[in-house]
């Protein structure tokens, strides 16, 4: 399951999308909006997405994860639009027969999502706003 949505993410649904009777382990990563950044209070975040490409890039990452680890299911749901501190921006679930694989694959998916998937966030502070560039070395990873 891959979902880009403006509505709150139902984490249980993301988990359920990976369910398998052969699974002994599900690892779930949940990204949440922090109330501070660079020592300033975050009032809200705006997430923007190039949706068709984002879905395709997430699909590639999930395929790569399924190639590297023996997975039974994987699901990614990413929220876009306006998010307040405490809200869930992304939920990723991975199921596998054994726990080590579920941890490694889930971490691979979020780490890779953060550098490759065309989604952008702008932090809105009390006294200004700023687009976040999370990865200083992205140039290298594509050239």
């Amino acid at each position, binding site marked *: 399951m891959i979902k880009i949505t403006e509505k709150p993410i139902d984490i249980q649904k993301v988990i359920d999308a990976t369910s398998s009777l052969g699974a002994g382990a599900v690892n779930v990563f949940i*990204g949440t909006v922090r109330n501070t950044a660079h020592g300033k209070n975050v009032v809200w975040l705006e*997430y*923007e*997405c*190039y949706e*068709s*490409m*984002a879905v*395709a890039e997430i699909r590639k990452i999930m395929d790569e994860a399924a190639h590297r680890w023996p997975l039974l299911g994987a699901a990614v749901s*990413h929220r876009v639009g306006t998010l307040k501190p405490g809200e869930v*921006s*992304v939920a990723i679930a991975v199921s596998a027969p054994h726990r080590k694989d579920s941890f490694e694959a889930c971490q691979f998916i*979020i780490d890779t*999502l*953060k*550098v*490759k*998937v*065309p*989604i*952008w*966030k*702008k932090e809105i502070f009390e006294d200004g706003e700023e*687009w*976040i*560039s*999370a*990865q*200083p070395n*992205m*140039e290298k990873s*594509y050239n």
Partner: protein
Amino acid sequence: MKCVVKAFGISREMVGQREVVMELENGCTAGRLKASLYARYPRLQNLRSLFIAVNGRYADDGQPIAEGDEIALIPPVSGG
């Protein structure tokens, strides 16, 4: 040929709109399109990185652009 370039995130704010129309020579590449965009919108050069996506995939500088391709500007991403 005319080429519509979608702009996202900070690049959208730098070009001032969601889409810009560029006039390209035939045989244009992603790299040459990027140079044209830098010339027209010099602020784009301040970005830590800027990629061109062609039909929803990251493009190398040498990738040719054909009429009707979906082109997008990808400034540094920050999802998650």
